[in-house]
């Protein structure tokens, strides 16, 4: 018997599958929660809960010397807007609050401070004790102590009617984030985490769910093509990702007053490329495991954790061991975090964006291509 020859790629089938997938998303409260509520919660956590700035650090000042210079140092400390000082005569008095963590560090003016200073041989010492269990805070303590020291030098010079002692002084100015608010770089970066959750975690479930519920077997027994099947999984979640991105941007700009200096068009291109990578990873894991639980766990480890830990969002990549730095090179979130931070804080800076976007493009093609290769139109193999 004769039949009309079956066609190749069919838009009708793709559309039908996309509609089906979209309805499933809309009817499953958990996907909507993840797409809309989760960005809100995560952004608020990153925006208000986590801050890498340490305003008003609690510091103990131990004045073992009660001389003029030591008093002057104490006055400088008391007048500083950055620290809340607590004064004592001996270290023992402050040992307990230090151990409890109520004080982040101690600045000790030794008993012979005034005498050595008077000798003028450069042997005067100030001791700084910080809590090494929190390296970030410890760094702040060290640099605040340094700042106090410099203020004290100024105060001393003023008192003597001399110009400031050090001929050169450092005046750091932070470009792009003038007030150095960590929120301004944390929020754009955390949008990358939200995109990863939607792209990888949510899609890691969708192919596996079809295998588990036995619908994949029925689908494979229809004339559906590989490309149709893959696109029908990727497109609706791509749309969901764009919606979440819009939600994120509105929250960041309107509610959190994070400046957005780049263009929406560039943001769209970057988001699309990044979603390509994470959707690819999610679908690949789902395709390989055919099991929702395993796929979600794998996506957590392969996409979500690297996006948080290895993207430079929270931990500086340049301070990681060389081996880990090498690993970050294949983490798409690393490039996306850079792109997002650049777009929000600096604008469309081609020199930074292009190399990063190029990598995102390669990564998207790689993951989607691998998924297509590993998608089987049969139950075996």
């Amino acid at each position, binding site marked *: 018997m004769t039949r009309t020859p079956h066609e190749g790629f069919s838009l009708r089938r793709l559309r039908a599958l996309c509609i089906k997938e979209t309805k499933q998303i809309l009817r499953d409260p958990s996907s909507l929660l993840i797409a809309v509520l989760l960005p809100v919660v995560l952004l608020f956590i990153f925006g208000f809960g986590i801050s890498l700035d340490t305003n008003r650090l609690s510091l103990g000042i131990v004045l073992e010397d009660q001389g003029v210079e030591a008093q002057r140092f104490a006055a400088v400390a008391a007048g500083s807007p950055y620290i809340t000082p607590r004064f004592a005569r001996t270290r023992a008095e402050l040992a307990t609050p230090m151990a409890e963590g109520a004080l982040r560090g101690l600045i000790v003016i030794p008993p012979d401070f005034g005498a050595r200073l008077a000798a003028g041989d450069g042997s005067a010492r100030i001791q700084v004790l910080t809590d090494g269990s929190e390296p970030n805070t410890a760094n702040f303590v060290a640099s605040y102590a340094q700042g106090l020291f410099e203020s004290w030098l100024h105060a001393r010079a003023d008192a003597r009617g001399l110009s400031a002692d050090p001929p050169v002084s450092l005046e750091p100015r932070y470009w792009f984030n003038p007030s150095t608010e960590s929120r301004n770089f944390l929020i754009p970066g955390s949008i990358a985490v939200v995109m990863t959750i939607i792209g990888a975690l949510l899609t890691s479930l969708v192919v596996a769910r079809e295998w588990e519920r036995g619908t994949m077997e029925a689908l494979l027994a229809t004339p559906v093509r590989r490309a149709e099947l893959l696109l029908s999984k990727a497109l609706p979640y791509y749309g969901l990702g764009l919606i979440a991105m819009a939600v994120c941007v509105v929250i960041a700009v309107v509610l959190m007053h994070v400046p957005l200096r780049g263009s929406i068009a560039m943001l769209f291109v970057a988001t699309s490329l990044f979603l390509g990578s994470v959707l690819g990873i999610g679908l690949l894991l789902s395709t390989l495991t055919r099991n929702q639980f395993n796929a979600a766990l794998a996506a957590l480890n392969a996409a979500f954790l690297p996006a948080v830990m290895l993207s430079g969002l929270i931990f500086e990549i340049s301070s990681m061991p060389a081996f880990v730095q090498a690993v970050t090179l294949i983490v798409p979130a690393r490039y996306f975090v850079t792109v997002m931070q650049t777009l929000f804080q600096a604008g469309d800076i081609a020199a930074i964006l292009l190399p990063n976007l190029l990598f995102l493009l390669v990564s998207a093609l790689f993951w989607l291509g691998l998924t297509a290769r590993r998608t089987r139109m*049969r139950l075996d193999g």
Partner: protein
Amino acid sequence: MAAGLAVSIRGLTHHYAGQGAEEHALDDVALSVDRGVITGLAGPDGAGKTTLMRLMAGLLKPVSGEIEVLGLDPLHAASELHLRVGYMPQKFGLYEDLTVMENLVLYADLRGVTGAARQAQFERLLDFTDLHRFTGRLAGKLSGGMKQKLGLACTLVGQPELLLLDEPGVGVDPISRRELWRMVQALAADGMAVVWATAYLEEAERCDALCLMNAGRVIFAGAPGEQIARMRGRSVLACDIRGNRRHFLRRALGLPGVIDGVIQGDAVRLVLAEGQAPPVAELGEDAPRIVPVEPRLEDAFIDLVGGGPDGRSALAGTLAEVALPDHVDPEAVIRAHDLTRRFGDFVATDHVSFSVRRGEIFGLLGPNGAGKSTTFRMMCGLLAPTSGEAQVMGIDLKHSAPEARQNLGYMAQKFSLYGNLGVERNLRFFAGIYGLSGRSRDRKVAQMLESFELDRYRRTQAGELPLGFKQRLSLACALMHEPPLLFLDEPTSGVDPVTRREFWSHINALVDRGVTVMVTTHFMDEAEYCDRIGLVYRGRLIAVGPPDDLKRQVADAALPDPTFEDAFIRLIERDDAARAAAGGVP
């Protein structure tokens, strides 16, 4: 390929990745499927039915052999094949979060059925399946029978020439199964080629052509009637049995001329070896009437695989007689009184009362969703009743469930042992749970290994065991603490007939020692093993009595000798009618 031939398979061999070449999923299988008839693909779980279906649907690549489906090579012409073949997998392939209509539309789009043709086909399919009223309902909210019809409708969109149905009757009540059968018959009459895979041999018996499989091989191909005719005169029913019919069965199975036997209500059905006359001399004294009956396909299956088990259970010698404490009424070791369970507005169990005697096998039978599992779970203390009482051994489960549970052994529907632990470790674990330790534990474990012939598998991971041995292990674990009560939830669904018989020989041995057994089942022939049946429908117990009594209740001039399935269906229909008459919504 002949004009009438839809499928032709020769020398087909298949095994899955990770499976040794020795253990074939399919071993040198040949099959022909004609247009215009229903071809039954029958055999127990693991026989290779699903593998064969998937190979015909082009979903697997065979290791070797030839398959031609509608003149096509399923592997290389997959997309054309998928336009012309409708394949309904075991779970029906429905999207539960889409409505009936949305499911239909999806499959119509996928198969390229559009425009006026689509409207006409939908109209016809909805008529055919009687789903018109439910087009807006989510597929997940349909009953099992309606899901099955929708699955069929989705498969039929695009008017396939070949219809492959993989165990369409599983998990569906007998009424829906009969309806489905009539629909598929109509399709075949219109010229469609249909392959119907099933583990129920009575279903296979009704097919026009039959391919009987066991352990990856075809053991018979031809008309089912051939097998029935071959067995004629060898199937007999021993009636009016004096004394205990379970003892009678065991004795009969011990005779060399008897290859198989099952309890059927008050009687015992025997299958004789070829050329054997009924053993009147040996059994006549206890069974004055031994009459020939129409053979069944199952008789032929047992004959083809070399006969059933001998009915003896090694367990028998190891068991002590169950002694009841004085305060327990031997007429009611299990007792339900006005037992009710609600889930929100839904009444799953509705004022159910019954009691079970010591040493009785009591079966709860009913369609899916009728409430038999809910009732069963309340009786073994897994679920608290909303109102009413559930007692075992005189202990109220509401107040002292743990104490009551120490008295019962429970075998769950699904294999619920630790699949990655060895057989012996599973046994030791369960012995520990029931408080055995030291010597007594060692002794009990050794005894179980011996009684259930699990010795050679003692280090095998439980998950790797053949199905029959898994079943034995589950039973062994449930019996570890020698409970006076045994609760079995669908104990032998999907199990081959030989293993099922063997399982029941163990149960019979237990009952002989005074163990009381409560069982849920949807297998009609399993129900026949029970001393009494409680028929559960819509949460209520609509009939209670010995299987033969229930059959007699529905017998009339048109159907003088109803089967148990007939009884089941008629009693349910009567209940529906009574409700309708009482003004309730049917």
